[in-house]
């Protein structure tokens, strides 16, 4: 990439972030005008317009805001229509005719999707103490361990037949939707060692275990859960 192109790319990035100077804006507009004259489209990888589109797409994906800059589906359909149709059995010809441009578009689309997935997962695993809309003193160690700790292995002959749902971004309930006025836990206070809280939660579990033993279907399992809770809750 030439120095001027590199500088132009930096200017576009700055413009997406709202930090472009007048000089940079002038440079971008001049380049976009030249591209329009040459009939570049938003899907051209190296065009300023294409970079502007992709940067906004990534930015909007991270911010979880609606994409307002272009009709992606229409653009994708047009791009597909422009592609030649290849027959099976002509693998070599297909490989030869695939341009790095189309591969690049696929890579960009995949990377944007990955960014979106990672973003959602990070929102889902964020420490509730840091979420302003539902402030709770998070005592459990399991939320973290369930995501980062070792997974319980399924027996070889007992795999669940679950259709994979890698990201659970939807659902009818979202914690952040509840306007609860719950005081933020004092981060300096070590709730893990708060004997009163541990004692109360242990009692909650015992009562729940009692209910579950009588009304549940899992036999001795609730009793085992409660026995484990005696030292497990807040002990770590």
């Amino acid at each position: 990439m030439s120095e001027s192109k590199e500088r132009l790319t930096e200017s576009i990035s700055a413009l997406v972030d709202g930090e472009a100077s007048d000089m940079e804006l002038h440079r971008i507009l001049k380049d976009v005008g030249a591209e329009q004259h040459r009939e570049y489209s938003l899907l051209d990888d190296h065009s300023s317009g294409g970079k502007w589109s992709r940067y906004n797409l990534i930015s909007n994906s991270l911010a979880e805001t609606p994409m307002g800059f272009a009709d992606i589906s229409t653009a994708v359909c047009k791009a597909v229509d422009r592609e030649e149709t290849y027959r099976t059995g002509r693998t070599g010809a297909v490989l030869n005719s695939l341009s790095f441009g189309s591969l690049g578009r696929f890579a960009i689309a995949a990377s944007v999707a990955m960014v979106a997935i990672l973003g959602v997962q990070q929102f889902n695993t964020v420490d509730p103490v840091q979420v302003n809309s539902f402030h709770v003193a998070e005592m459990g160690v399991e939320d973290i361990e369930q995501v980062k700790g070792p997974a319980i292995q399924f027996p070889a002959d007992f795999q669940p037949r679950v259709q994979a749902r890698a990201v659970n971004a939807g659902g009818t309930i979202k914690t952040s939707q509840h306007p609860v006025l719950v005081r933020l836990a004092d981060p300096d206070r070590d709730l893990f060692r708060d004997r009163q809280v541990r004692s109360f939660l242990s009692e909650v579990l015992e009562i729940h275990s009692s209910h579950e033993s009588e009304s549940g279907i899992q036999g001795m399992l609730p009793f085992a859960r409660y026995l484990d809770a005696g030292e497990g809750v807040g002990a770590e």
Partner: protein
Amino acid sequence: MVFRLVLVWACLSMPINLSAQQTAHDLVARMHDVSRQLSYHGLFTYEIAGDQRTVKVSHQVSDGVVYERVTYMDGPVKDRLRESAGNHCNLRDANHLQAQDHYRFDIIGESRVAGREAHRVQVLPKDDLRYGYLYAIDQQTGLMLQSILINQSGRSLEHFKYVDISMEPVADSGSAMVALAEFEASAPSDCVSDTQALDATFFKWSVGWVPPGFVQVSQKVAADGRESVAYTDGVAVFSVLVDVLAESPAHPGLSARLGATQMVVLNQKVDNSYYRIAVSGQMPQATANQIALSVSAIASSESDIDVEAIN
């Protein structure tokens, strides 16, 4: 000829598949009664968050009274005994439970667990409000021999499995279960003994929202005045506890989790009295939050109740 064979196979296979689906639900529905009425003892493993424990268990039923003993075989010495008087607190009625509306039940195979032949049953939720389960159910007795609790993304959160079990009553209950006097009653409490009473003003709190399919099955008042109610959808159980505080709460609302058990505690001030609302059960945190937030005091006719969230 081939067409006739295909036709016969199609006619035969359809009722078999329907029957299998029905059987999977029946197997799970029977687990409640079997687990309460059967005497057995054995050894199981219990694993949460990568930590596995080995537990020795004895479950003996005598004259309608259930005596349970659980002993941890590794780690800190822990031994608990519990006595519970049959089903007197339980108002579970299978006719009122519509678990099939909220879970998909499937027999996914046969297996051998703790030396016994078992059905592999998969119970998967149809929404994101509850967890799924994989069960191994003893073919002979219907007792659950293995349970794997899985979250919405198919990740296992808890694994319970018998490695050895005997369905015979303990020969010498005196030595195996120690003296009956040593058993502690499971939370001394008054139970509501009929369904109609569940709707009465026994519980001064209203649980405004529960996941679809959950019905109330028990409620208790402990000796110290704590009121609690339990709900089930036929598979999962959660409980709501209301604790009366003598003074302002010492800690804010909180959320805690142990294995697959989620707990949410919120504080409320009603008529200058302080209360703690605790929701506990094997469910996603969002579901527990929603339930806890919906709990409110039932206004009495004598005075308007001033409710204030003080969390």
